[in-house]
C-alpha cells in the first residue's frame, strides 16, 4: 500500500506539473510587444562599451543623453561632470580615457552613475535608478527606441559657417576654411590646412575608425560639438547646437531648414554663392587624351559632352553627390577600361550606370521619380538603348561643334583644358531649352473614347488640357526642358512604343478590342490599356481625383 501511495504521489506530481506549466506558460504567452513608435528619442545611446572586451552579462544600458545634460545644467554642472578633458577637448568617453581595462571600466560606470543618482535622490531631485535596480538601466526591452536622423551640412548651412562673424577667420585672415578643413600629415602625425584641397569630411573620416583616422562620428562630435560649446562659452548668441536633438532631432532639423530658407532669402540675389575652390563652370567631358596615346592608330571616336558644372552645383546639396570618393575628376579613377581605384567601373559605366546616383543617367532617372515626371516615365523603359535620339541629347556630334570646320572626337579630346572649357561654355550657350511640341491647334481639343460604349456613353478626354498640364510640369525644370526639346517627345508618355509623330497610331492598333486569352505578350487589351494608362498616371502624379474606382467621373451611365 505504501508503494501504491508513492506511485499515486508521482502521478499527482505529473498532473501538477502539467497544470503548472499550463498557467505559467499562459502567463508568459501573453507578453505585449513594445510599441517603439510611442517613445522615440534622437538622444538614445546604447552603452555596451564592455562588449568590446567580453561577453555582456546583462543587456546594454539604454541611455538618454539629453535628459542627463538637461538635468546637469539645471544642477549648475556641465559636460565635464561626465567627460574628461583631453588637450582642451572633451573626451567622447564617459569619465575615462582610451585603453582602460574592462574591470576598471565597469567600476567607473557603476560607481559614478549610481553615485550621482544617489546624490541627486538624496538632494530630493528627480533622478535615475539607484543602486540595486540593475534591470532599470540594463533593460532588455527598453520602452524607448532610438530615432536619430543623420546630421550634416547642406549647401546653405555650409555657407553660413563660412561667415567670419560666426566662425572667426584663421591666421592668414582671408577666410575661415582652415577652422574645419584639414589634411593629415602622416609623417608629422599632425593635421594641416591645404588651401584649395578642401573636400568633404567623409573622404577621410569613414564610418569606422581606420589607421588612427577618427571615424566620422568621432570627428564630427569632437569638432562640431566642441566648437559649438566654445562659441557658447564665448557668449556668441548664434552658436550651433550641442545636444543630441539639436542636430539629430527632426524638429531641430526642420528649424534649421527654415532658418536656412530665411537666410537665403536675405541674400543679395537670393541664392547661395558658389564655393570658392576653383572648380570649372563648364566641363567638356571627353576621353582622357592619354587613353588615345596608349592605343596609337585606334582613335576612340567618342563624341564629347558639354557638362554644366555650375548648374549642377545648384541642384545638389554637396559635392559628394557626384564626387563620391574624392574631389578628383571622374576619369582619374574610372579609366577607359576600368582600374582598381575605380573598382574596375570603367568610364562609360561611371557615366551611364542606372544603379548609381553618382552617374549622370542614374541621377537623371532618379529625377524622373518626381510626381511631375512619374506619370509617364515610370512606365518608359530606362535601359539606355543605342538610339541617336537619346544619346545625341548629350553627346553632340563632334562635326557640329563650334570649332570652325568641325572636328573629330580625337581632335576635340586632344584640345588643351582651357580650350575645352571655352568650347563647353560655347556649346552650353548655344543650347535652346524650349520644349518643342506640335502647334496646339493641330492637336485635337478633346478625344471621344468609345471603348466602353456598350455600357457607358463615350467619355470625353480633354486631350489639350492634359498636354498643357504635362508641359506645365516641365516648365522651369532645366533637365526636363532640355530632354523634351524634340517635338513629340512629350507625347511619348501616352503614345508609347511608336516613333514620335503628330498623328500617332490609334491605341486599338496594338491593343486588342476585347479581353482575350493571355498568350504570348504581356500587352493589355484596349479596355485595360486605357484604364491603366489613365489610372496609373493619375496615381503616380498624385492626382487624388478622380478615384480609380469612381467610374461615373469619366463615364456617364448610358441612358436606356
Amino acid at each position, binding site marked *: 500500500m505504501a508503494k*501504491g501511495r508513492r506511485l499515486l504521489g508521482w*502521478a499527482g506530481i505529473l*498532473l501538477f506539473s*502539467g*497544470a503548472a*506549466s*499550463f498557467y505559467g*506558460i*499562459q502567463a508568459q504567452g501573453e507578453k505585449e510587444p513594445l510599441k517603439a513608435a510611442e517613445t522615440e528619442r534622437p538622444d538614445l545611446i546604447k552603452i555596451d562599451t564592455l562588449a568590446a572586451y567580453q561577453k555582456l552579462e546583462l543587456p546594454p544600458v539604454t541611455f538618454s543623453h539629453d535628459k542627463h545634460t538637461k538635468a546637469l545644467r539645471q544642477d549648475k554642472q556641465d559636460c565635464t561632470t561626465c567627460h574628461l578633458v583631453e588637450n582642451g577637448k572633451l573626451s567622447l568617453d564617459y569619465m575615462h580615457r582610451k585603453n582602460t581595462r574592462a574591470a576598471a571600466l565597469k567600476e567607473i560606470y557603476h560607481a559614478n552613475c549610481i553615485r550621482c543618482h544617489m546624490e541627486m535622490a538624496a538632494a530630493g531631485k528627480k533622478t535615475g535608478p539607484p543602486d540595486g535596480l540593475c534591470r532599470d538601466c540594463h533593460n532588455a526591452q527598453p520602452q524607448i527606441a532610438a530615432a536619430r536622423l543623420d546630421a550634416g551640412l547642406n549647401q546653405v548651412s555650409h555657407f553660413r559657417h563660412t561667415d567670419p562673424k560666426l566662425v572667426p577667420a584663421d591666421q592668414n585672415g582671408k577666410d575661415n576654411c582652415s577652422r574645419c578643413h584639414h589634411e593629415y600629415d602622416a609623417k608629422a602625425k599632425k593635421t594641416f590646412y591645404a588651401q584649395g584641397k578642401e573636400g568633404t569630411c567623409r573622404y577621410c573620416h569613414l564610418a569606422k575608425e581606420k589607421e588612427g583616422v577618427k571615424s566620422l562620428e568621432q570627428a564630427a562630435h569632437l569638432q562640431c560639438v566642441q566648437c559649438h560649446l566654445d562659441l557658447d562659452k564665448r557668449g556668441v548668441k548664434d552658436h550651433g547646437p550641442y545636444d543630441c536633438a539639436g542636430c539629430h532631432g527632426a524638429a531641430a532639423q526642420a528649424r534649421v531648414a527654415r532658418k536656412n530658407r530665411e537666410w537665403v532669402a536675405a541674400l543679395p540675389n537670393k541664392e547661395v554663392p558658389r564655393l570658392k575652390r576653383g572648380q570649372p563652370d563648364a566641363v567638356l567631358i571627353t576621353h582622357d587624351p592619354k587613353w588615345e596615346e596608349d592605343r596609337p592608330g585606334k582613335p576612340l571616336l567618342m563624341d564629347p559632352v558639354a557638362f554644366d558644372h555650375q548648374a549642377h552645383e545648384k541642384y545638389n546639396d554637396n559635392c559628394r553627390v557626384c564626387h563620391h570618393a574624392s574631389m578628383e575628376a571622374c576619369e582619374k579613377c574610372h579609366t577607359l577600361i576600368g582600374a582598381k581605384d575605380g573598382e574596375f567601373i570603367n568610364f562609360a559605366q561611371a557615366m551611364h550606370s542606372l544603379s548609381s546616383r553618382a552617374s549622370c543617367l542614374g541621377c537623371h532617372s532618379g529625377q524622373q521619380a518626381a510626381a511631375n515626371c512619374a506619370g509617364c516615365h515610370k512606365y518608359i523603359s530606362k535601359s539606355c538603348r543605342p538610339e541617336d535620339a537619346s544619346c545625341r541629347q548629350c553627346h553632340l556630334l563632334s562635326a557640329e561643334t563650334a570649332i570652325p570646320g568641325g572636328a573629330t572626337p580625337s581632335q576635340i579630346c586632344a584640345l588643351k583644358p582651357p580650350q575645352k572649357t571655352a568650347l563647353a561654355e560655347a556649346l552650353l550657350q548655344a543650347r535652346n531649352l524650349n520644349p518643342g511640341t506640335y502647334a496646339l491647334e493641330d492637336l485635337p481639343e478633346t478625344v471621344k473614347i468609345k471603348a466602353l460604349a456598350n455600357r457607358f456613353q463615350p467619355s470625353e478626354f480633354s486631350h489639350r488640357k492634359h498636354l498643357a498640364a504635362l508641359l506645365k510640369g516641365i516648365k522651369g525644370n532645366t533637365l526636363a526642358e532640355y530632354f523634351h526639346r524634340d517635338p513629340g517627345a512629350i507625347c511619348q508618355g501616352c503614345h508609347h512604343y511608336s516613333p514620335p509623330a503628330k498623328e500617332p497610331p490609334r491605341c486599338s492598333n496594338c491593343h486588342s478590342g476585347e479581353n482575350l486569352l493571355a498568350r504570348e505578350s504581356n500587352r493589355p487589351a484596349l479596355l485595360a490599356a486605357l484604364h491603366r494608362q489613365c489610372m496609373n498616371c493619375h496615381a503616380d502624379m498624385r492626382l487624388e481625383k478622380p478615384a480609380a474606382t469612381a467610374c461615373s467621373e469619366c463615364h456617364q451611365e448610358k441612358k436606356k
Partner: protein
Amino acid sequence: MATENSAVKKSLYTPFNVVVGVIFLVGVVITFLRFTKGLGAVTNLSDNNPWGMWISFDLLCGVALAAGGYTTSAACYVFGLKRYHSAVRPAILTAFLGYSMVVVALLYDVGRPWRLPYPFLVQAGTTSVLFEVGLCVMLYLTTLFVEWLPACFEWLGFQKPRDLIIRITLALTILGVILSTMHQSSLGALYLIVPSKLHPLWYSMYLPVFFFVSSIAAGLSMVIFEGTLSHHYLHGRMDATYLREHDDVVLGFAKGAAMVLALYFMIKVVGIAIDNKWNYLLTGYGAWFLVELLGFVGLPAFLYAIAVREQNLKLAKWTAVLTVLGIILNRFNTSLVAFNWQLPPADRYFPSWMEIAISVYLVTLGLLVFRFIAIRMPIFYEDPRYRQHVPHEGEEEEGPEFTEHKLHRHPQTFGH
C-alpha cells in the same frame, strides 16, 4: 422515434421516465427543425467550421468508446482468455448500439442522409479516408449485428440459426478486429490532410496509430465502466458466472489498459520528437496538450497500475472513467480545439445547445435500447439451455432465477 417517445410517455411518471420524456420531446422537435429548416437552423456550423459537435462527439468519440466490442471478443476468442467470456456479450451489444448511434447521428449531420450508401453503390472515392471509414463502419456494424444475433435468437428460441452463427464466431471476431483496426485508425487519418489547419502538436503522421491505440484503451475502459453501471441498474439480470467473473474482468482489463496507455503515452512523445515540435510545448496550446497527455494518459496509466497491484476495484473503475474522459478530450481537441487554430477567435466554433441536445437525445436512445435488450435477452447471463461456458470446478453455477431449468452440456462449438 415518435412511437418510442409515446411509449415512454405512456409508462409511469417515475423521475427517470420524466427526464427521458423531456429529452425525447426536445430531441424530436430539434430533429424536425433539422430536416425542415436545415443545419444552419440548429447548429453553429459555418463555412469555416464545417464539422462540429456531431462529428467530434457522436462519430469520433462514439466509435472510439464502442471499441470495447472488438477488444473484448478478441481477448476472449482469439487470445483464449476464456475468463472474460461473460464480458463479451455486453461489450458486443454496447458496440453494436454505439455504432448504430453513430450512423443515426450521421443521418442528422450529412446534407443528404439518404445518399449515405452512395460511396458504395454509385461512385467510390477510393482516395478518400472517409470512404475507408464509411466502408469499414458499414461492414463492422453488420458484423456486430451478426455477433449480437445469437443473444436475440436465444431469446426468441431459434436454435438452428443461432448455432450457425456461433460456429463462425472466430471468423467474425477476426473480421471485427480487422475492420476496427482499419477505421479506428482511419478516423485519425481523416485529419492527415489538414496539416495547415490542425495545430502541430496534434497533427502528426502518427495520427492513425494514435487513434487506434487510444481506441483500445478506450474500449477496455468502457467495458469496465459500462460493466460498473450495469451492476448498478441491471444487477438482477446477471447470473453467478457474470458476477463471479466480473471483478476478474475488471482487473484483467485494467492491466491491459495500463499497458496500452503506457504505449500510447510513449508514441505521443515520439510523435512530438520526430517532427521536432518541442517548442510548441511552451505555448498556451502546448500547456493544454500537456494537460491532455499527462493528466489523461499518463495519470490513468499509473492509476490503473496501482489498482492492479493492489487489486483495488474501486480505483480501477474510477480510472476507467478518467481514461474514457481522456479519450473524449483527445477527440474533441483533435477535431475542435486544435482544429482551425489559425482562425481568429471570432471565427471559431462552439456547439449550439441544440447540437448538444441531439447528442444527448441519441445517447439516451442508445441507453434505453440497451436496457430494453439487456432486460430481455441473455446478455449478462447465459441462457442455461445454451450453456457453453465451462464453469470452474466445484463451483455452484446457477443464476439466481433459473433454478427450475435442467442443466445440460451443449456440444462444444467453434471458438470455444
